[in-house]
């Protein structure tokens, strides 16, 4: 019966839940979904991680390559992030070149990560002007059930934390490169950026903030891309983004900042526990 009701009166259906201070999936407004994290799920990559926040699943694989640094930045390595939203993850995506939405998500993830300065690109340089690491971080969304950016940042940072770089010897005279895979050093990571998404639902006069929204909630709150995303790293914000959607009042905005900080503590604990178990 409820399913029929949802189709006939979509807005009223959602409103009825919100009026009773509960979300359609049974969560409270400030409840987030369970997080499941697994490191080194893909053996053929240099590092990888899978995360599941509720139904949202994102896999990240890291591939290492060697290249010559750019002439204008001779002592910088490269870190390339890319997010793929394939037709597999949601009916909204069609086969073919990446949609505008997919490009925007990819851009947001890359921006947040660059702004957090968690990886110093100078650490990726082996010999200035001659040789540097290229770290390709490819994230693939398997199931898109909202808050994709959170999941992407989580898998990305977990895989980077588990990444080890093999030792490279470079002979300046002969320009010969030899890679010694038996000696591996972990990559230096500064802090642990954690992104938290919020959907803002305008129910005048109040605006309701839903944490870790599902795809259905995102759609009811102004469509995909209207989320408020807050990223917290090392006691600083490294990205607060909101693009249109419902307008956010000052009080609601302060509340989101507090929640984002609390959630980042929890996610940090999840990532650390997961990495510790992996080493054992």
């Amino acid at each position: 019966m409820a399913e029929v009701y949802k189709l006939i009166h979509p807005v009223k259906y959602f409103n009825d839940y919100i009026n009773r201070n509960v979300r359609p999936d049974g969560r409270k407004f400030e409840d987030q979904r369970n997080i499941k994290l697994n490191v080194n799920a893909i053996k053929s990559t240099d590092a990888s991680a899978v995360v599941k926040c509720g139904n949202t699943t994102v896999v990240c694989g890291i591939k290492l390559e060697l290249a010559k640094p750019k002439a204008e930045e001779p002592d910088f390595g490269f870190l390339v992030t890319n997010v793929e939203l394939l037709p597999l993850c949601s009916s909204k995506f069609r086969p073919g070149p990446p949609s505008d939405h997919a490009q925007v998500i990819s851009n947001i993830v890359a921006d947040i990560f660059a702004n957090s300065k968690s990886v110093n690109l100078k650490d990726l340089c082996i010999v200035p002007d001659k040789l540097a690491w290229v770290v390709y971080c490819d994230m693939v969304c398997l199931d898109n059930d909202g808050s994709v950016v959170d999941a992407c940042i989580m898998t990305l940072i977990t895989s980077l934390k588990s990444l080890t770089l093999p030792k490279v010897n470079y002979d300046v005279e002969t320009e010969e490169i030899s890679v010694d895979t038996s000696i591996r050093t972990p990559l230096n990571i500064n802090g642990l950026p954690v992104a938290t998404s919020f959907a803002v639902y305008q129910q005048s006069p109040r605006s309701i903030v839903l944490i870790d929204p599902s795809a259905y909630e995102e759609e009811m709150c102004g469509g995909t891309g209207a989320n408020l995303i807050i990223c917290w790293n090392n006691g600083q914000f490294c990205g607060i983004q909101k693009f249109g959607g419902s307008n956010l009042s000052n009080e609601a905005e302060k509340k989101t900042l507090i929640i984002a900080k609390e959630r980042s503590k929890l996610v940090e604990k999840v990532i650390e526990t997961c990495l510790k178990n992996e080493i054992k």
Partner: protein
Amino acid sequence: MGVEDENNFKLRPMKCELNYLSKSDGSAILAQGETVVLVSVNGPLDIKSNSQSIEKATLEVLFCGKGGKPSVADRFKENVIKQTCETAILGCLYPRTGISLTIQELEDYGGLLTCTVNCACLALLNSGMAMRHMVAAISCAVNEVGNLVLEPSYEQVQSSRALLHFVFESREKNLVTGFTEGSFSEDTYEEALARCRLASELVFDFYRDIVRKYSNVI
């Protein structure tokens, strides 16, 4: 920073001309400091049936950079403007139609996106589109010492530690859009938000002056 300082801020000089293009339904050219943007609005018009929405007008945003070639970064800018303007336009009055917004960057000396959002709002006002509220974008830089600079110049943008951009609506001054570059503390964010909110008043005043100049009735 004293209280006096907070109330006496000045934005970069804004110059604007409406109806700049003769063939579009609404157009505006806006210069904020040395950054110049031209926006043209057409619509509501017919669009392909597969991109029609039965609930509201479909907004199409095309951003043309100075360099010519479209890039992923341009998609991002288009998305910012599209989402912001979609909130501002009363799209439910024009169902099954399309509204197209074409943006041409002319000069970029910092604050391109804020200038674009403001110019888009002026062009929409000029086209006579029904709107829920106006929007005003303000950017703010955190300089090396940690002080806030409203509407930074090109040199200030280059040397800044963080850049924060906000878009407010005209009715309650609530936040419509916000995006940041670099990292900053919570206090900085709160202060920047409060100061930009105050400064948005100046932009709305500017809109009012411009519209009054072009309108015979008011």
